[in-house]
């Protein structure tokens, strides 16, 4: 199967599936003021978040980089009912801003936060601080933040979530991860979480999809984050964002792709302005279309030769024993971010044959990147630069 046809089938999968069904610190925000919904208010799609039974809008709101609280206030006025923050975002400023933006509306909304603490005492201390900053007696979902390997979660951390539940400080226990493929089996066996928050977007492979399905099958609610695949803004100074992703509607396509997948309870895209909010609201009313598929395929075409997704498929595949993913990541330091010295330092830490092995000596490259990265070409470039 060619890379193109695999990708197309991957993208098309979304097409084949049915659409699933405290007082503000900033007085000027006046968040408690009722706002009449205009005739232009898009249709809201509600979904049930696994066994929690929570009825969430398919579009939630990731508040992390929102600077102006009015965007969050307006989202709540328009009917979005799930808002996500974390203890660690901007050293707690984000939780305070969310509290100010939601005001008394909070009681009608579903609110989640997270803690990065790695023991019971730290977690419970963070939770009390979060509740104070969010000006609420409870959060609906409380995530153990950024757990990418099972050993990062200790029994006393799960105990902390149970204690918090018993105390009525949280309604549901969650876990957030950037590596669900590594966490899924353990999560299913552990049965400790009501909700899982995971990275999920159109650049990801079928393994992630299988992991989501396995977790969802147990009744665990699934919330998707990073759904725009970093495509909406430059990731480094001076970087040109792919114009096809900047084009009106392109990011909406990425959001619709996720919403058209099964098992996804809700999504939490970051939104910094009213225009993004208006555009993303459309995702609940529009189906993923062939035009959406074209927009996303075009983006994948552009990034495929260079963009390593660290899926691990190339582990051990090089007949000369080169660590392919590590070499590609190091090359990105130099090519992508201008950190030549850092890249060379890291390259020189690899085993010596990374400098001497020549891709040209092989008649055929045994590394077949499922995502279309031109591996031999990239390895050769790394050697030219650093060896």
């Amino acid at each position, binding site marked *: 199967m060619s890379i193109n046809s695999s990708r197309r089938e991957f993208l098309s999968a979304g097409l084949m599936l049915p659409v699933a069904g405290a007082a503000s610190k900033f007085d000027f925000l006046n968040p408690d003021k009722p706002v009449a919904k205009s005739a232009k208010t898009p249709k809201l799609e509600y979904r049930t978040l696994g066994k929690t039974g929570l009825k969430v809008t398919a579009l939630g709101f990731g508040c992390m980089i929102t600077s102006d609280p*009015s965007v969050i206030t307006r989202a709540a006025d328009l009917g979005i009912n799930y808002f996500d923050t974390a203890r660690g975002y901007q050293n707690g400023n984000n939780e305070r801003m969310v509290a100010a933006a939601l005001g008394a509306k909070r009681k009608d909304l579903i609110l989640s936060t997270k803690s990065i603490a790695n023991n019971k005492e730290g977690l419970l201390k963070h939770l009390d601080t979060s509740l104070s900053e969010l000006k609420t007696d409870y959060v609906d979902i409380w995530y153990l933040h950024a757990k990418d390997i099972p050993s990062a979660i200790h029994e006393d951390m799960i105990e902390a979530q149970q204690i918090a539940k018993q105390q009525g400080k949280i309604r549901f226990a969650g876990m957030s991860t950037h590596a669900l493929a590594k966490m899924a089996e353990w999560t299913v066996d552990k049965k400790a979480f009501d909700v899982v928050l995971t990275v999920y977007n159109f650049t990801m492979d079928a393994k992630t999809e299988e992991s989501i399905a396995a977790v969802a099958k147990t009744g665990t609610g699934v919330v998707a984050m990073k759904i725009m695949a970093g495509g909406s803004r430059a990731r480094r100074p001076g970087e040109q964002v792919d114009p096809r992703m900047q084009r009106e509607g392109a990011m909406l396509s990425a959001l619709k792709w996720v919403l058209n997948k099964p098992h996804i309870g809700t999504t939490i895209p970051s939104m910094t302005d009213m225009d993004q909010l208006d555009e993303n609201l459309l995702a609940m009313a529009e189906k993923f279309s062939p035009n959406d598929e074209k927009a996303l395929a075009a983006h994948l075409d552009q990034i495929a030769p260079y963009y390593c997704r660290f899926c691990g498929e190339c582990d051990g595949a090089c007949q000369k024993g080169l660590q392919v993913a590590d070499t590609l990541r190091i090359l990105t330091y130099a090519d992508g971010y201008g*950190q030549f*010295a850092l890249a060379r330092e890291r390259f020189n830490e690899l085993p010596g044959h990374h400098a001497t092995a020549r891709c040209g000596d092989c008649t055929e490259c045994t590394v077949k990147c499922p995502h279309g990265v031109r591996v031999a070409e990239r390895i050769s470039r790394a050697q030219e630069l650093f060896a």
Partner: protein
Amino acid sequence: MKMLLACAVLLAANTAHAQAYLDCHFVPGYEQSGPKRQYTPDNLFDYRDGAAEGYLIYSFTLLQGIDCKSGSTILSIDISDMSDADSAYGMFSANRDPRQPIARIGMGAQLMPQSLLFAKGRYFVEIVETDGSTDSNQTAALQAFAAKIEPLLEGRSTPPEELAWFPPANQESVKLVPESVLGLKILKRGYVARYATGQAFIVIEQSPISAAEVMNKLRARFEDSTPVKLADEAFELKAPYLDGLCIFRKGRTIAGFTNLADPQSATGQAAKLLERIP
């Protein structure tokens, strides 16, 4: 080829220089715990998880860090290169607790019992006790490390000059908004000061012409606005979420006051802001 070699030598020198300010022996009794760390925009998520996005929007390019241990206390020192001094100050302003005072280290600092943040030149520095569950007071060690690190960091020690343009009376906080000032995509990047009542903003465009174009777009968005005589051009209105507001342009600077009870009050405050803009 010579040029490439020169660039490589220069970059290598920068990295070596960067490593110089990561030394646990700066403070007696502290030893390095574990290896030094480095993260770029590509893998910062591995270290900061979702909070990484908060760095990326402030032009983050490289984080270098070290853990220093003394007895059971571990201080985590992370120094992030934010590309330029404005972005570094922006990162500081987004992460400081506006309820707490600013200390005089670099462009600005915030000292808490278990953490010290400061910005100097293009660098944003975080020194944090890693075990947040204790109630210890590490201010002496935090200050001692900062006193050694700050002089080694090149660059500006004064905050962005635009901050001084905001009227100081009743000001609660000021920060750099890296995108969508006031939640409006048209206003790409600028400073926002929150007051006990209302907020003020300053956006600097490339030229008076591009600033005038932005004003045209704003008038199109706020179609019920009324022109007022202020600076080169200005308008006022009452708008959803922004309440009473007045926006004006002076040369390539777009600024104004929002979230006041009525447009006239906003125009009055905007006039005071205008007086402070050179």
